[in-house]
């Protein structure tokens, strides 16, 4: 079965964090803390989402002198739709109705 894009546990964790308050611009460090993803995992995912126009990015000028502008993120309309779909699909997989999802014998789990 081909893998569904944007459905890894790490990406789902990020989607959940971004869906908490979609219009708000978020920072990388804050997202890393919230999702417990290392920067080396988080940023490549952000990069991929932004490339596919699922994520908007911006530079927010710093209010404190001497600090560099910070990169900010929020989901686009497409991103919100896809993230909602993926999170919902994952939730339904976690508590499968036994009758609705018969497991074929010997099939891969």
């Amino acid at each position, binding site marked *: 079965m081909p893998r569904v894009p944007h459905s890894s546990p790490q990406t789902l964790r990020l989607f959940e964090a971004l869906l908490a308050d979609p219009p708000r611009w978020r920072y990388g460090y804050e997202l890393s803390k919230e999702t417990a993803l290392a920067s080396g995992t988080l*940023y490549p995912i952000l990069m991929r989402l932004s490339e596919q126009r699922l994520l908007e990015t911006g530079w927010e000028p710093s209010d404190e002198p001497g600090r560099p502008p910070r990169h900010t993120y929020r989901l686009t309309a497409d991103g919100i739709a896809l993230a909602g779909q993926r999170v919902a699909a994952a939730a339904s997989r976690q508590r499968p109705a036994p009758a609705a999802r018969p497991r074929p014998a010997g099939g891969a789990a």
Partner: protein
Amino acid sequence: MSWVRRLARGMLVVAVRGRRERGGEWGEAVLAEFGETRGDLEAVRWAAGGVRTVWRERRRRVRALPLYDRIARHALTGALVAAGAGLLVNQFVLSVRMMPSGSMEPTLRVSDRFLVDKAGFRLTGLHRGDIVVLAGPGGSERVKRVIGLPGDHIECRAGHVWRDGVAVDEPYLPGNPAEDRTECAPTTVPPGHLFVLGDHRVVSTDSRQDGPAREDDVLARVLTPLRLAGAG
């Protein structure tokens, strides 16, 4: 700021920017957040992830280049790596030498090229009959055949070489009775030394005059002459 944080930040800056004023968008994004981290461990982990991010960003950039550019980059990298590997191999593993004298005729003639092994013999050890390149005075090199290993008793009787009381079979000699005659003083090869002779006994200067050579002076072992089939 602790020295660990400073080091982590310094490495991240180098990874993101290199010699440029400003790095790629995503590398800069990670760098801009560095100040948010708390504690040395978190700073180091953040910087390590930043390096990974830069690597991924770079790979994406390269993938977006036109095919021709990508091929050219690969070819250039490949050529540089191959040249570097070639130099290392030539220096430490395999190399080509030229025969400086006629002392190994007819096995190796003057100006014959031959392939030498610079590393393998150190693992396998030298054997009787091997041809070796020895360091001579003033950076010169001598090429001789190993006749005796440490502990061997070498003597010459009636123009033939004897090792531990047995006549040595020497099919590599010129095959001319006048040139094959070998005279030498009886010698027991001391530890760490080799008794070496040139195949062309009337021309060669070797352990008959100089005594056993030091094993430490062995630079390489001759693998094979490089001669075009049919040439000479």
